[in-house]
């Protein structure tokens, strides 16, 4: 492997690492601040993905889908908190594991009933659909670079807010 390819692979791994960080950040926040072990974190992630797809198809705009999806996700989170998680704050972590593990099955089945089992995809928005040519036959999708930017912003945001909390 030559040096150029080494650099590209480096970019790949950093970019993927940032993506995983974004996913993991939610899990850590919930455990760190609320003290809840949420095994169903992946289900919430799935809910986000399906909302993005469903709303984007409805509104014809990803921006609207992100805004609408965020509102629905917050409402859904609050509902679950009121109904279930609230009663588990004081209980053993193992009880929380049991609850959230069960939720995985519930979400999975609901998804299957509501949206079916077909394969879906959301188109990358036009503004980010381009790719930057790196070598003579490989280009890098702008979308991935922007996502990395979002992840970095998220990381900075988390660090700042947790510092402030530590001082307060």
């Amino acid at each position: 492997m030559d040096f150029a390819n080494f650099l590209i692979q480096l970019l790949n791994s950093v970019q993927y690492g940032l993506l995983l960080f974004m996913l993991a950040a939610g899990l850590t926040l919930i455990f760190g601040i609320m003290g809840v072990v949420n095994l169903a974190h992946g289900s919430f992630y799935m809910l986000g993905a399906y909302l993005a797809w469903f709303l984007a198809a409805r509104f014809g705009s990803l921006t609207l889908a992100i805004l609408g999806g965020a509102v629905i996700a917050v409402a859904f989170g609050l509902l679950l908190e009121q109904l279930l998680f609230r009663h588990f704050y004081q209980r053993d972590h193992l009880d929380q594991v049991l609850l959230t593990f069960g939720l995985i099955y519930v979400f999975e089945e609901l998804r299957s009933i509501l949206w079916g089992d077909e394969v879906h995809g959301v188109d990358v928005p036009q503004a980010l659909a381009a790719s930057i040519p790196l070598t003579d036959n490989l280009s890098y999708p702008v979308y991935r670079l922007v996502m990395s930017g979002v992840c970095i912003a998220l990381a900075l945001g988390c660090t700042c807010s947790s510092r402030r909390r530590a001082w307060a």
Partner: protein
Amino acid sequence: VAIENGVRMAINERGGKLGGRDIEWFKVDDESEPSKGVENANRLVQRDKVDVLIGTVHSGVQMGIQRVARESGVLNLIPNAGVHAATRALCAPNVFRTSFTNSQPTLALGKAMVDKGHKKAVWITWKYAAGDEAFEGFKDSYTKAGGTIVKELGLPFPNVEFQALLTEIASLKPDAVACFFAGGGAAKFIRDYAAAGLKDKIPLYGSGFLTEGVLDAAGPAADGIITTMHYSDSLDTPRNRQFRTAYATSFKMQPDVYAVQGYDTGLLLSQGLAAVKGDIGNKQALYKALETQTIDSPRGKWTMSKSHNPVQDIYLRRVENKENKVIGVAAKALADSGAGCKMA
């Protein structure tokens, strides 16, 4: 669901009876869970005392069913699972497959690629049984046709982070890429492949499952991909058109390759039982009848190989406008080797 619809449709077309006898259906959800394969198959065989066991989709579960079928001697028809062993080392007189072996589609792919002038290829797949078996077919046909496999790339099933491997493909600069992916992962691979700018530089080939049921999700990124498979929705024969219209009217949805396989399973069963006049107890005669049937399938006529796997045409298809257009026959009457099967 598509498979079940297909089976029922084939049997209903023949009056809803098999060899003059009424049918009683039993159904178990195998959850695609290999660890429950034996248990679920036993429930049908021992509790419900079924004469015929139709299933299944998942290769891992099939291995469990295979064991039960071999031990109990109950007739087993496989409408999908492509695991090699079912009609190779573990083949049995009472087990028949109506779909394909995992290496059958790719066994027709290699020559088609070399014919187009692609002498150096990179192979990429998930590292699991179905991927390895698909590779076996590709390796066999591609090297035999004079091609060289530059590199074999893989990632653990069902990972979908392809970026690092795409970078490697670009640096290897092969004439073409061949792959085996299916479902959501296939849609993502097709999109990532295009987004990495490889689509117009290095042609992408694959086993037909790459482009089954994912073309809506993959969008224009899939245009031009060439695959090989035993069926295509757009296959332009009177038989297929008639089947598609009838299926769409009965079930209010479009049939796919799984529906065809289910339909053929029903055809095989009803033709076989008709040949022995419904005498399901006469196993020798029944197996003989099943072995010798010609199935007039929407995919084209096919027969049973000695190891009980279809001998069938494999079509060459190119994606155009979210459709798998048939552009030719990649291999006529292709049979799986059946290597290791004592009956072959």
